[in-house]
């Protein structure tokens, strides 16, 4: 009997099942405490003063009038930061408060703490800041110009990274190229940034309850700015209302702790929606050029690309996002030759960093639009061009890294091809509600065309480039109950559901409890990069396996049996030599074990100057087919259905996997059709849910999902991360479907190259012809 078979034997709530979320009932009845719901006796409220300028020198800050207001307790500025003046995830380049120069509209300049929010708002208005405006750097391409003055002491270029491989002089029989634009997307998690900081009674430390993705990274950055030892700062996960990358960077953590320590009272800060748009990093807007070379038969021979990522005022994770983009430029296709150039720069726009898909979203949009161009030029259909180039396990990437992960790209493409088409009888004729633009009924059925498009993607899992990526978990067995402790941020994805599943299946015990998620145990790393099932799941499994080994040794010594003959089967321990079987709940009576494990994935290496090196840990693959109805007259789109085939390794919790797939596709649809932070002179023109649109239930089509479950030998329990892939190729699939609809009005229509696509992009494509 193999270990895998054992895991698949039955225990209630074990792996492969879909037990309900442990926090589900509390969330449904409204009793679950999100960070914004927290309060404490004697609590004060804090609020941030932000720069109204894109780029300006601070001449003077006068807080005297504001400080004198009744109900105002303290106002703090850069002068009041006792420790490190800056923070940041990769480079520590972002000031806690701007002191000499502000570099984007919305940069924190001061913070006030007062009796309530209203008094805070009035105090903020009473703070006088005198600025001397400086010329802002707005255009990312200008940032590359050596004549452009640096807007930051670290310079305007955050990172340049090329990937050069094979023979770059090769010219294909068929060459296609275009320029692509990706707009700035917001994570738009519903639970706004918030935190409650409670100072220690002696004022020597602080406890901060915060909605974050990575408690220990926050801990290090916060303690350094507070000039406190890490042991004097405790971070506790406040209920997190979604994250999607937007909580990986510090937002209000340092501010709220400073205010609590300054007043000696609990302080709460929470952002409004408009402040949230300023308070966290966004998906990088990108300008991408790509040129694909292929044989007449449509086999890729070379990919050329140039990426310019606008990182905004501070570095955040821009350098890692860029690496993801340039190393994924080929997509899930074999290609031996490449010349890819990439740069991430500083501008006086909003800082950008992590968002679901992390650089690969931008690369995939461009390479999938290119594959469609190539298909057209080769006289092939979109499925066939992808089939001919599909990579598989053992192929070498343009970085020289060999794909060791299971790579079922061909199965994904053929799975998409087999997907039935929806049988809705093209009901735009009969149901106005189903017309593009909805029930407003402005669409004439005669203007509607149905299009079909495809997108396929490769996505790295976990952290890259030699980062020491690990997660910690502790497994305690006492009184027959398994208790798990980890610092893994639960942001909605459901790690708190699968962690007990892992313990149940590994130990054969149903009763699993979870301890508070805080910095009372080692780091779990971030809830990002599709990594927690692999990393924290791997840590939980490893800790449980250690406890299981101790149980086996105890049983073996007390019964004189061979510990290697013992296995867990469902809720029982089985001696495979004798066939003897006993309930685990009986066996563990009176036993106490406590094991903690740090789990690491295999090491990776940094890229060299030519972008060579096995920089990524593992890969997952996915494909999407979108069906859209397009009103070509008005440029309106209705997505009729999205089908997907996703490589998941193994679905540890099928319902959670479905949730990730459907939710990820919704965000991909949002980027395709509606989501963009529009900036004018660095000011956000749409910082609200009235003007920044995210898909509603009326926008989201049915999703048909097929899982490819080939357990990955390198992945704990065979399971790959599933969170990011759904967001990546759904976007180009939708744009390809719109292109297909537009093309039905005759050959030679313009290639669609921008997301989010705007109605005018569609009508202009219809009215113009291709440039090349």
């Amino acid at each position, binding site marked *: 009997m193999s270990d895998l078979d054992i895991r698949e034997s039955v225990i209630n709530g074990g792996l492969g099942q879909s037990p309900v979320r442990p926090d589900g009932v509390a969330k449904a*009845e409204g009793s679950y405490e999100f960070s914004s719901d927290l309060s404490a006796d004697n609590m004060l409220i804090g609020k941030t003063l932000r720069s109204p300028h894109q780029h300006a020198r601070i001449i003077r800050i006068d807080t005297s009038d504001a400080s004198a207001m009744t109900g105002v307790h303290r106002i703090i500025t850069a002068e009041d930061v006792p420790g490190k003046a800056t923070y940041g995830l990769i480079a520590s380049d972002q000031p806690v408060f701007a002191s000499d120069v502000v570099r984007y509209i919305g940069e924190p300049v001061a913070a006030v703490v007062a009796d309530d929010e209203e008094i805070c708002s009035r105090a903020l208005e009473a703070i006088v800041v005198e600025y001397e405006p400086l010329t802002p750097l707005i255009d990312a391409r200008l940032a590359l110009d050596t004549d452009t003055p640096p807007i930051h002491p670290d310079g305007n270029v955050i990172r340049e990274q090329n990937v050069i491989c094979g023979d770059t002089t090769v010219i294909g029989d068929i060459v296609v190229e275009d320029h692509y634009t990706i707009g700035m997307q917001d994570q738009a998690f519903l639970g706004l940034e918030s935190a409650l900081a409670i100072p220690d009674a002696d004022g020597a430390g602080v406890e901060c309850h915060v909605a974050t993705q990575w408690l220990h990274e926050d801990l290090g950055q916060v303690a350094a700015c507070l000039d406190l030892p890490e042991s004097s700062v405790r971070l506790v996960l406040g209920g997190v209302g979604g994250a999607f990358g937007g909580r990986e960077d510090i937002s209000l953590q340092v501010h709220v702790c400073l205010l609590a320590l300054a007043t000696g009272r609990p302080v709460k800060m929470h952002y409004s929606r408009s402040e949230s748009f300023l308070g966290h990093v966004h998906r990088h807007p990108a300008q991408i050029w790509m040129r694909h070379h292929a044989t007449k038969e449509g086999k890729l021979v070379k990919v050329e690309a140039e990426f310019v990522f606008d990182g905004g005022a501070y570095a955040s994770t821009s350098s890692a996002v860029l690496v993801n983009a340039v190393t994924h430029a080929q997509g899930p296709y074999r290609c031996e030759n490449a010349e890819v150039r990439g740069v991430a720069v500083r501008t006086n726009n909003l800082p950008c960093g992590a968002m679901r898909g992390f650089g690969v979203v931008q690369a995939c949009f461009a390479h999938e639009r290119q594959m469609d161009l190539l298909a057209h030029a080769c006289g092939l259909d979109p499925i066939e061009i992808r089939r001919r180039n599909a990579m598989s396990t053992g192929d070498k990437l343009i970085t020289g890294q060999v794909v060791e992960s299971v790579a079922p790209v061909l199965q994904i493409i053929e799975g998409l091809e087999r997907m039935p088409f929806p049988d809705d009888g093209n009901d735009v004729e009969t149901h106005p509600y189903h017309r593009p633009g909805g029930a407003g009924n402005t669409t004439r059925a005669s203007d509607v065309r149905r299009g079909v498009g495809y997108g396929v993607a490769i996505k790295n899992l976990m952290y890259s480039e030699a980062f020491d990526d690990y997660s910690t978990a502790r497994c305690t067995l006492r009184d027959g109950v398994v208790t798990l402790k980890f610092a893994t941020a639960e942001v909605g994805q459901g790690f708190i559901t699968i962690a007990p599943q892992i313990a149940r299946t590994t130990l054969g015990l149903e009763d699993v409890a979870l301890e508070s998620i805080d910095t009372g145990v080692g780091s779990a790393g971030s809830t990002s990069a599709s990594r927690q099932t692999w990393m924290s799941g791997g840590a939980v499994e490893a800790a449980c396996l250690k406890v299981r080994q101790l149980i086996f040794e105890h049983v073996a010594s007390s019964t004189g049996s061979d510990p290697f003959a013992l296995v867990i089967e469902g809720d029982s321990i089985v001696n495979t030599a004798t066939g003897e079987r006993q309930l685990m709940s009986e066996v563990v009576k009176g036993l106490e074990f406590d094991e903690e494990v740090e789990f690491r994935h295999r090491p990776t290496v940094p890229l060299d100057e030519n972008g060579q090196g096995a920089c990524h840990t593992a890969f997952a693959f996915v494909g999407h087919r979108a069906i859209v109805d397009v009103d070509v007259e008005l440029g309106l789109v209705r997505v009729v259905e999205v089908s997907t085939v996703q490589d998941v390794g193994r679905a540890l919790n099928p319902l959670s996997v479905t949730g990730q797939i459907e939710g990820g596709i919704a*965000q991909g649809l949002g980027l395709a059709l509606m989501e963009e932070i529009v900036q004018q002179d660095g000011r956000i023109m749409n910082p609200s849910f009235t003007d920044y649109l995210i*898909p509603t239930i009326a926008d989201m089509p*049915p*999703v048909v999902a097929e899982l490819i479950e080939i357990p990955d030998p390198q992945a704990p329990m065979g399971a790959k991360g599933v969170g990011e892939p759904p967001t990546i190729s759904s976007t180009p699939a939708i744009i390809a479907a719109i292109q297909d609809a537009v093309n039905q009005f005759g050959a030679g229509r313009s290639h669609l190259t921008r997301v989010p696509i705007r109605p005018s992009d569609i009508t202009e494509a219809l009215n113009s012809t291709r440039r090349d």
Partner: protein
Amino acid sequence: MTSKSDERHFELSINGNRHRVTDSYPGESLLTVLRDRLGLTGSKGACEEGECGSCSVLLDGNLVCSCLVLAASVTNCSVVTVEGLGGSTDVQTAFVESGAIQCGFCSPGLIMAATNLLERTPEPTVDEIREGLAGNLCRCTGYGRIIDAVQVVVQQRKNGRS
């Protein structure tokens, strides 16, 4: 004769109980009063302008965004918040069991909206579910499991389980 501060006192009827509101600024929304003055934090705020539906409550049986309601204007109304549903209605249970909840921030509002939809339209079509819940944003689920949860309730009620 009432003092100036007394004039700012008002009472609200919430989940069948009278609540005296004493420390509210004039002009505060029902959402702010529920959350910050009365400690009823089940209703959530994610946009404060009526777009996201996270703050949905029933006002005399009608679904409203509590962020758009002036608290002091509804002293004669009956307010039902998510706390007033009792915790284990069939809609709440179906949301939990169908995977309609991830981060859960939108869940109280969506559960109020779904509860109200099923009162008005006991057997909604998928289009009617979409129309009925279109005022509630969810960023995590992509809505598929939410539609499923509503359909589960419809089926259970038809089968006599409620």
